[in-house]
């Protein structure tokens, strides 16, 4: 393959300067070049959602982007969301509700859930189920995940109301 390309981006708030092969996907770059293995690859064609990360605060499939396309962008992965405690409440409810089994889809689920709840709305169960259509889970049957996101949305609303 042709020579490597210099890119500069922020990942989880840290500036990363790297030389990458043009064909390296963002998912492979995150997992292999900078060892952020919380981002998973399940299909490498943008269907299963295991590789979802935030690109400039919006969920994207890291398997459908080349790393060079993320040049100049801000990427955030499950590790970063965890570290800055942006999804503490989601993680706690997922844990208590057992909304995960093998855990392979879970980082992508949480990134999706982050996106679903980012607007501050309180989607109903059907709305949550629709919004999760890009996330495959083979273990749970989804209900616990829907419960966990629904409960987190409710808690956040209650929290906002208490603060208002």
């Amino acid at each position, binding site marked *: *393959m042709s020579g490597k390309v210099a890119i500069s981006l922020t990942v989880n708030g840290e500036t990363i300067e790297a030389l990458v*092969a043009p*064909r390296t996907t963002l998912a492979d770059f995150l*997992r292999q070049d900078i*060892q*952020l*293995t*919380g*981002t*998973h*690859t*399940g*299909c*490498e*064609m943008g*269907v*299963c959602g*295991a590789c979802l990360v935030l690109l400039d605060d919006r969920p994207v499939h890291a398997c459908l982007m080349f790393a060079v396309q993320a040049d100049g962008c801000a990427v955030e*992965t*499950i*590790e970063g969301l*965890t570290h800055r405690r942006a999804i503490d409440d989601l*993680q706690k409810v*997922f*844990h*208590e509700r*057992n909304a*995960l*089994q*093998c*855990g*392979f*889809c*879970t*980082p992508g689920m*949480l990134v999706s859930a982050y996106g679903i709840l980012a607007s501050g709305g309180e989607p109903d*169960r*059907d709305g*949550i*189920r*629709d919004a*999760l*259509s890009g*996330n*495959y*889970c*083979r*273990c*749970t*049957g*989804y*209900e*616990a*995940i*829907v419960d966990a996101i629904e409960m987190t949305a409710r808690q956040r609303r209650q929290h906002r109301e208490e603060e208002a």
Partner: protein
Amino acid sequence: MNAFAGSIDRPNSYIGRSVSRPNAKRLLEGRGRYVTDLVLPRMLHAAFVRSPYAHGRLVSIDIEEAKALSGVRAVFTGEDLASICAPWTGTLEHFNNMKSPPQVPLPLEKVMWSGQPVVLIVADSRAIAEDAAELVIVDIEELPALADPVEAMSAEAMSQELADNICFATKLDSGGVEEAFDAADTTVGQSFIFGRHTAVTLEPRAIVADYDPSENRLTAHHATQTPYQFQDVYSRHYGIPEANVRVIAPDIGGSFGMKLHVYHEEMAVVGASILLGRPIKYVADRMESFVSDIHARDHRVTGRLALDRDGRITAMDVDDVTAIGAFSSYPRTSAVEGNQVIRLMGAPYDFSSYRANLSVVFQNKVQTSQYRAVGHPIACAVTECLVDAAARELGLDPFEIRERNLIPDNSYPRTSPTGYQFEKLSHQVCLARLKSIMNYDDLLAEQADLRVKGVLRGIGIALFVEITNPSPAFYGVGGARISAQDGAILKLTPSGEVHCSISVTEQGQGTETIIGQIVADQLGIDREKVRVMTGDTDTTPHGGATWACRGAGIGGETALQAARKLKANLLAVAGLILQAQPGELDIRADWIVEAVTGQQRISLAEVARIAFFRSDTLPPETQAQLSVVHHYAPQGYPFAFTNGAQGCLVEVDAETGFVKILKHWVVEDCGRIINPLLVDEQVRGGVVQGLGAAFFEECLYNEDGQLTNGSLADYLVPMACEMPDIEISHVETPTRDTELGAKGCGEAGTAAASAAAMNAVNDALVGHGAVLTQIPMTPTRILRALGTI
């Protein structure tokens, strides 16, 4: 037996309590450690060149250009690996006259399915290995593919080692079937087709094989349910002493039975690591998963029921033809599913005349083998659809006909006409409970109202029996080196905490959690002070691991007995320290207490401190035993059967053929429940895999044996928006074979979900002249059944 029912309120009583999984937190933070994530020093990466044909003769393989590519470290073909690997054959001795051709990692003369690995490339990166794979030229003389199982039964043998394409055939006949059908007032018969589908674990298969020639030692980091089985396989087939083979199964991204079979790729990668003396990683990509992971099901069944004028079943007669691919899988074989299909038929019902014919057939497709709920969904769907057909014929309500035919709850123990021994089942209670939680009468009224408006609602129910806690009768008696026992090591730490390493394994179902609950419960300590470790053949005793719903029932009993043994040891030491009789002491909330009064005497941590660091203060000759190892092999009944009932509510759009699944119900009796939260989620996950088979999932092949939908964009996995909420209720009938009383629950959901769904769709279509007897029930098939297209 079953000594602790109702003891949930005492301190540290964790059995029966919903608690969260300590090991799930790391997965929620992206700190899971899957084989996929693993990187070792000097590690190389593997990719395979695969056969584009379903059947063909290898003429030549040109690897020169691939070998010359920069970054390629080795290229291996069939002879390279066959020279160091003993072939394997997927047969079991208790299946009379079963046969299968011997298998080697990479083929020597013929390719037998499209996607079979032919050449192994090892390179500095996966990308380079894939580049090199494109430079290999494999010349294959294409041969006619056997893609149709019925045709394969009479066609010329496709394996030169065999006389025909029949892997295994057997008959069951309890007698009286012909007479019962002759005398019947009503008979019903249907022909069913169950499509091929596959596990689609979110993490594909993965292995890092790391052979160290200086010690003749193999370490395989292997995404599998069964590390001990693979330790045995790698040892025997590559001639490495068993104690020198270590298999580590870390976090596993789903398995469902799929990751416990021997695959050609993993065997080839182990061989390549031996030849190169370096670690080699192979992770299947999703396209490779579809053409090389085992598929499941693929049955064509005809079934008949005979009934008397009261709607009582008098006889059942079935014929199952199941196609398994080119080889029987190893070491569990591909005949177990068919065997369980014909033995589980009619299991909930009280009749004695049964006859079955089973044909397990080779074809030029990837292997089928054990996947979640082996055989159960087939037996359940055939039985339950026939019962519904009989109910329609007789004008009986589906609940009514089942109430008339169920084995009464008070008539156990029973032996089925197929030879299964049932200790105690609870069909009548479960069926009544299902009717109640479904609000069945309301559903019927609503259905009738909507039907007037042209809305086709369907209500389907299905009863099931599930095989759990298998004894050696499953594999051991057939010569397979697959353990039915488990082992645990419990170690007291000097701070009074407990470390448990056990041979059952974790794939997210919560094995480590329930083992921790049992150990803490039995020892009388806080569960936060119990650390459970699984999945490493070097640090855990050899055992069966987790499959066939044995983790809770057998692994749990192992942990329970081990904990009682350690507790006795600890009370003995405490007795010496306190100058008290051990029998008068107990452990509660991490303290040694007076058993009768509960008065605290000395903390467990203090006992541990004294025993580890001040043994000089104990009486002379005292040798405190602060670790125990304990093994438990199931005894009594060969299997612990469970049972339950499921209901499904659907709405069928007769114009488009689309089905909306509105709600699903499960009543389940898995004996003693250790953690209701985890049991419920196992059941829900199982149901969704069953609904996937019922409506979406199918590996589609053309007549040339080519898989035509082998990607995740083409193969339909159930999505959140397509799945209903699932309501669950439990009945608890503990097995009396163990102290714990637990049976399995992981396959119950899958066992009956597709049967309930079929009955629901057919109920919706009553009066439209359509009966669906093939799954998945796709919109096209529904429209065809309706005569629309």
